[in-house]
Every structure is written in C-alpha cells, then in structure tokens.
C-alpha cells in the first residue's frame, strides 16, 4: 500500500514539469500532426514539382511488385547493395529524390533518405504519409 501511495505522489509530482514542458518547451510536439518532420514533403508539393522527380520506393520487393508510384524505383535497406547501383543509373544530379514507404508511421523512408544523403545524393525528401498518401490522393 505504501508503494502505491508513494507512486501516486510521484505520478502527481511529474505533472508539474510536464505541464511546464507542454506550455513552454521550444521542442515540444505539436498537438496535431499537421507539422512536417525535418526532410518531409507533402504530396501536393511533390506533384507541383512536375515530372523532374525520382520516386524511390523503400518498401519490400513484394509490396513494390504489388503496386507502386508510376516510375518509382525500388531501393530498400535489405537489398541496398544490389539496388543502389540501379538507383544511381537512373538518378541525375540535382534531380529531386522523393522516398516513400507504407504510411506516416513507417520509418524506412527516413532511413533510406538518410542513407542516400550519406552517399552524396541531394536533394532527398521523404513523402509525408507514404504510399497511403499516394493511394488516397484526390
């Protein structure tokens, strides 16, 4: 019982700095998810760029073969060594590269984008909402 009582007090005490963080922390999360993460881009923006975009599908081969953005090339971390040379063949310097994976919550597109940047590819963007955003486009 003593442990529970003390735990409750600690839980309540943590509310004070948490409230201050929620109110004043410069790096606090937005309460709605409209904000783009660093490196992310909205689908509407990519569509406005026109055709000079190289789409990169960071999902699995199976997902890619099932459906993908027209013209997208497959580049995932599992088969990076085989797929990256194919990407380089298609890529032109200064061409915008947009990476996507399955949805907002998937991490693969960010990982592939980071790896592309580490290999000197620029500019590289991540599609906010991923494949789901493409499928649900109006």
């Amino acid at each position: 019982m003593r442990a529970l009582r003390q735990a409750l007090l600690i839980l309540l005490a943590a509310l004070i700095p948490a409230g201050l963080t929620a109110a004043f922390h410069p790096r606090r999360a937005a309460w709605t998810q409209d904000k783009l993460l660093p490196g992310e881009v909205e689908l509407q923006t990519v569509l406005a760029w026109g055709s000079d975009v190289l789409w990169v599908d960071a999902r699995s081969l199976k997902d890619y073969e099932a459906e993908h953005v027209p013209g997208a090339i497959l580049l995932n971390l599992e088969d990076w060594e085989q797929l990256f040379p194919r990407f380089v063949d298609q890529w032109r310097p200064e061409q915008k590269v947009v990476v996507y994976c399955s949805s907002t919550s998937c991490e693969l597109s960010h990982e592939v984008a980071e790896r592309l940047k580490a290999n000197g590819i620029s500019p590289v963007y991540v599609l906010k909402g991923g494949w789901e955003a493409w499928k649900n486009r109006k």
Partner: protein
Amino acid sequence: MAKLGCVLVRVTVGALFVFAGATKAYDPGAFAVEIQRYQLVPWIVAALISVYLPWLEMLSGALLLLKRFERGALFLTTLLLVIFTLALASAMFRGLSIDCGCFGKAFTATGTTVPLLRNLLLLVFTGILWMEPR
C-alpha cells in the same frame, strides 16, 4: 558484499532512468515521433506521453538513487520497464523496423532486440531491489 551489490544495482537502474528521461526531455517532439513509430497510440496520446514520461522517468530514477519515496519509485520503475518491454516485444512481433527510442536521440540505430534484452536485465535488477532487506 550483498549490500554493495544492491547499491550498484540501485545506482545502475536509477542513473539509467535519469539519463533516459533527460535525453527525452531535451527534445519531446522527437520523442513523440519515436512513440508514434510503435503504432500503438494516436498522435495526441504520443504527444502527451512525450511531455510527461521523461519527467516521470527522471523523478523515479532520482528518488531511487536518493532512497526517498523508495518503494513508490521502485514500483514505477518496474511498471515502466514492464510497459517498455511489452511495447518492444510487440514491435518485434509485428516486424516493425524501428529504433527503441529509449534514450531519445542519444543513441540511434539501436533496433529492438538489444533494448529488449537490456530491459529484461533491468527487470531482474528491480527484482533484486524488491527483495533487498529493509
């Protein structure tokens, strides 16, 4: 000797919680993204957790180190470790390719296996602290 062992265990668990909380409290926005990658809660809940959990971790870890409100702090560290372990196991089970997010951006590319094993070890440590003679 046993007493020294308990002190070491207490310092390890307490310091890890303080450190983990501090790294997350530094950038709650990034931590909210890490939480969301587990695909367990909606964004608003992830955002609320991101401002509250780091302080709870720091407070629990500090109280454990200082031996103040000790049982309560131990209860919370154990409870949090169980929750973290279940979340990691669930991510592994669903095949999510994510980082643990346990220490904010201090350590990245950690995957889920090593953090899961570390949490299990920490749970053993908290078990030792529960059995420590008063």
